[in-house]
């Protein structure tokens, strides 16, 4: 039956819901339902007209994900990536108007994606790329508005008060740990990479912090066990006193100094002292 009128919000909603379902879940019944609204012609019937929109929508979203996950595209090829994204689109709707927010769950989808099982490192590489994208777009650090004290104010804190402070990392910092050499895989798949491009999985796992420095430079830094324990605690909001209780193989002060020097730690909170 053709729909001859749209005279209410609920009728408009029905039409748009039918259209959406015919795009993202194009089974026969959904196509037939959406087609009842559409004028077809001898040259281009209703189904073909819907497919123009389907191709445009899926193509646009796939292109956006290709820009977020260029290394994954390189590792599995554009065709295969497009196929994988088609499944992801069906399973995970995009709920933010900012297309840059879509793709957060692609690493998890890849981990469960049977055809990609042989590429055991792919989900972790995808997670690295997502965190890179997230860091690139993260909020700028603003010590004043975030209520963070600059590191220069550390000298005003009495020794006995130090356990109560909380060190603060840049907003963009995120950690990733993988049993695979994902940083090397990422490196050798960059366009400007010149050296030998073979990576052996037995090179072993890695812990990384992915972040953006104050001058907008993107950083992927390898962390040793002490550093990851420290940064992880900082990102979880642990006080310096709680961190001092953790086990480290090096002096904690040295670890803190190193993280301050790189710019990863930008200040501290003294709220507990007030």
């Amino acid at each position, binding site marked *: 039956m*053709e*729909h*001859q*009128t*749209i*005279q*209410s*919000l*609920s*009728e*408009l*909603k029905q*039409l*748009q*819901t039918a*259209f*959406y379902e015919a*795009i*993202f879940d194009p089974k026969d019944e959904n196509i037939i339902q959406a087609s009842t*609204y*559409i*004028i077809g012609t001898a*040259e*281009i019937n*209703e189904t073909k*007209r*819907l497919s*123009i*929109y389907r191709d*445009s*929508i899926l193509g*646009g*979203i796939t292109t*956006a994900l290709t820009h977020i996950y260029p290394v994954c595209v390189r590792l599995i090829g554009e065709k295969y990536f497009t196929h994988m994204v088609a499944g992801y689109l069906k399973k995970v*709707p*995009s*709920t*933010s*108007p*900012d*297309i*840059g927010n*879509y793709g957060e769950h692609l690493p998890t989808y890849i981990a469960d994606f049977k055809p990609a099982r042989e590429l055991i490192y792919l989900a972790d590489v995808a997670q690295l790329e997502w965190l890179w994208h997230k860091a*690139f*777009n*993260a*909020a*700028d650090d603003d010590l004043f508005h975030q209520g963070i004290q600059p590191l220069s104010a550390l000298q005003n804190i009495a020794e006995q008060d130090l356990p109560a402070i909380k060190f603060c990392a840049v*907003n963009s910092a995120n950690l990733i740990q993988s049993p695979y050499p994902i940083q090397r895989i990422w490196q050798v798949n960059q366009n400007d990479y010149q050296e030998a491009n073979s990576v052996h999985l037995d090179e072993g796992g890695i812990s990384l912090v992915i972040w*953006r420095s104050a001058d*907008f430079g993107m950083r992927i830094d390898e962390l040793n066990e002490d550093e990851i324990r420290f940064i992880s605690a900082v990102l979880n909001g642990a006080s310096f006193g709680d961190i001092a209780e953790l086990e480290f193989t090096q002096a904690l002060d040295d670890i803190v100094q190193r993280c301050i020097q790189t710019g990863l730690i930008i200040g501290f909170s003294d709220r507990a002292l007030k």
Partner: protein
Amino acid sequence: MSTNKFHLNSIQGAGLGLRSSHYQEVFNTKPDIPWFELLSDNYMAEGGLPILRAEKIREDYPITLHGVGMSLGSADPLNMDYLARLKLLTQRLEPIYVSDHLAWVSINGNQTHDLLPFPYTEFTLNHIAERILQVQDFLGREILVENPSSYLGFHATHMSEWEFVSGITKLTDCNLLIDINNIYVSAFNHGFDPYEYLLAIPKDRVKEIHLAGYEKMDNYLFDTHGYQVHPPVWELYQAALERFGATPTLIEWDTDIPDFSTLRNEALKAEKLIKEVT
């Protein structure tokens, strides 16, 4: 580029849609382009380099913001989070115009990230006019709405697109961004006369024009923004300028983006035609 500071508060002539691949060239050479249009949706992130670059552009050029995320034609409530981000962006960049489309993008909270058509009826006319007024109230400024290109029509449509667009201007105080390429593409795809469309548009409400290139498919035209402006679109543009007068015009190019000089040549062609009606 003019050195008069007042040139930053209005737009005229033929501007360019600025894409990230051309930022460096613009920073380095400060080309003599009268204004740039930025895609607001590309600057919605909380921070980082893109917004900083946009602010740097704004120091030297007037800009307009053009978006795809308002989803004016949707049955969903307006996305206030999106509008709040857009408002922040307008406060940071002080664009001359803020525009979006007569289209829907999301339904039931799910995004398609594309501009989709809806039937032109009395109900949708009132529904969208009301939403435009809400958006303008929230942003604290008038917006421009753009005519879309489309590949299908609806049984429920009871008025032409130009009647719909005119109707919007009667029910709201918003202005129009008329995309000449979109009119041409839709006219071909739906079999109407693009000149009749132009004649029906209230000319005092047209504040900006868009030009772009389409792709010829087997039996329809597809609006890819991936080519130079085609000759029949230039012809239609000339007719538009004769009717609307010298209107700020933008060259859009979004896929297979060429080097900056190719874009600039397109803008120069438009500039020449604008001067003929000035």
